[in-house]
């Protein structure tokens, strides 16, 4: 536990250092209003990463989150075009239910058919994108077709921060409680940490993984509405390739790809680290050709660092045998 805590402290330090470094080249970056903007901009990544964390903790992976987001977002936009007067609250509930249903499809395939999660979600990722194309014929839904309240909701300001940012905080708090204080949360850690032991304690491994996928899907659906509303446009390729950012945020945040280890706070910091990099690169005037390389290097350094600090030192049993050869 102290190890995990210190890992998060290190990550927090790295983010602070990064922000300070950016500030030396572009002082405007550390103005509170800009920091809030960066946090808000990173919110979709945070919400998705928390969902992804739950899945990775159970030794699975969900590559379909971005496609789920795009499909749910597109359906929300289509509903909005058809029924502009439908309250946003209803639409958000719908987005979460639809996202959860799409996630449950992944979960069922993993649970009942025992197909490896990477294969299942790789498949559903393509299927979801294909379904968007079938629904829309590749057409866009544009800002002027959406209702004003639809696009205004995530950017409405509450105590100086857009609603989008508050939703990320709300999701984080709920998930911290779920992971630490509910049987489901503990079962998720148990399944990932040692599936065999989990079975002996009476935990249904498949069912837990199914629930993890459902949670991930629900959060992806929620982000779907927020994303479409924020950028005021919906089309097939929305958030293309974003699933990789989501997995990267988890890995940077110290979530073990082998399952069982990681925290919500770590995930948030991992997402925030990527968010700061993404928002800083455009303002520090670095050649775009370098930007990709820098983002990639940051990921590898962070992961290498995590691997290093996470490695437990082996115990030497026979001191004499060590020097024998």
């Amino acid at each position, binding site marked *: 536990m102290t190890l995990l805590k210190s890992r998060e402290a290190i990550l927090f330090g790295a983010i602070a250092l990064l922000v300070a470094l950016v500030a030396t080249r572009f002082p405007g970056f550390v103005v509170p209003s800009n920091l809030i903007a960066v946090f808000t901009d990173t919110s979709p990544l945070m919400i998705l990463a928390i969902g992804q964390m739950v899945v990775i903790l159970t030794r699975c992976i969900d590559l379909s989150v971005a496609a789920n987001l795009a499909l749910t977002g597109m359906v929300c936009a289509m509903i909005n075009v058809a029924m502009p007067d439908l309250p946003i609250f209803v639409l958000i509930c719908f987005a979460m239910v639809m996202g959860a249903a799409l996630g449950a499809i992944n979960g069922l395939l993993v649970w009942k058919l025992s197909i490896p999660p990477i294969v299942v979600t790789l498949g559903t990722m393509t299927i979801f994108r294909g379904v968007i194309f079938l629904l829309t014929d590749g057409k866009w839904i544009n*800002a002027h077709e959406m209702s004003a309240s639809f696009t205004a909701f995530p950017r409405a300001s509450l105590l100086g921060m857009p609603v989008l940012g508050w939703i990320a905080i709300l999701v984080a708090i709920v998930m911290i409680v779920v992971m630490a204080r509910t049987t489901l949360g503990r079962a998720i850690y148990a399944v990932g940490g040692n599936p065999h032991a989990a079975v002996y304690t009476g935990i249904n491994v498949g069912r837990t993984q199914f629930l993890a996928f459902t949670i991930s899907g629900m959060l992806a659906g929620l982000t779907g509405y927020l994303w479409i509303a924020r950028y005021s*446009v919906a089309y097939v390729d929305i958030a293309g390739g974003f699933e990789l950012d989501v997995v990267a945020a988890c890995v940077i945040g110290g979530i073990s790809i082998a399952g069982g280890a990681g925290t919500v706070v770590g995930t948030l910091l991992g997402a925030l680290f990527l968010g700061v990099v993404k928002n800083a690169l*455009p303002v520090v005037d670095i050649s775009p050709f370098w930007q990709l390389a820098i983002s990639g290097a940051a990921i590898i350094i962070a992961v290498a660092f995590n691997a290093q600090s996470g490695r437990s030192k082996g115990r030497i049993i026979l001191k004499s045998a060590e020097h024998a050869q």
Partner: protein
Amino acid sequence: MKFAKLMTSVAVAAGLFAGPVSAEDMRIALVVKALGIGFFEAAAKGAEEAAEELGGVEIIYTGPVDTTAEGQIEVINSLIAQRVDAIAISANDTDALVPTLKKAMQRGITVISWDSGVADDGRMAHLNPSSNALIGNMIVKLAADHLPDGGDVAVLSATTTSTNQNIWIDEMTKVLGNYPGINVVSTVYGDDLADKSYREATGLMQSHPDLDAIIAPTSVGIVAAAQAVADAGNIGKVNVTGLGLPSEMAGAIESGASKSFAIWNPIDLGYSATMLAHQLATEAATAEPGAEIAIGRMGTITLDDSNAAAMADPFVYDASNIADFKDIF
């Protein structure tokens, strides 16, 4: 029995097509990628306009139901059977249509391609909506028109490797000298992703507080930049312009984030393709490199070494005409 039935239905269909045509009318077939696409419906409108202006011309607007080369081959075969005078096609495939179009030319039918071309062998001439040089000039002109005293502009492109965008930006850089006072302060890349383009546009406004315009020669980028400008409260201060589609940009024009943008006008394109086909079919002009061909109200085009020509500058859309086009494409 079945065969006879088929023959009857073909004859009936042919009869339906041939019905109202008087013998002297010149028949020009406008073959599109697929029926039911707003862009092409608008092109057909332009073709009808040209037919009215020319007189004695009947337009056959046709195409497959989905965007396949096979579908277009069937359509062309039926047009050959109907002995139309000219075919103007926007092709679904550069090479697949060549044999069928060659057959049409052997039967004395004038064949041109427009919008989306076919290989040189398969047509007499090709009409591009615009040229790289004209587009490069237009995107900076759009920004300069609203900056009479000059100002700082930045370019938001697609990816660093997007061929079209890179060529257009090169062409823009070449003519920059003609627009004194216009400073290109930065070129950034949004990778044609809404979120990255939005972030890059936000970054531009932060790192260049005096920025007057963002030029985005990509349809994803221009929409995202307009949203970023609106969210940053910079409407009226930073003008977003470039290349976009009216249906996608209607919101940005309405909010004022974009004063104007450009893209080809499908009506003009259909009009010009019909004019070109008519000129060649009546042998008023010949399709050969260097030939100058008059195309009615759109002026004169010059064929290049591969018998291709550029129609005109991209058409400018702004608050005055967006409503007419936003439902078309």
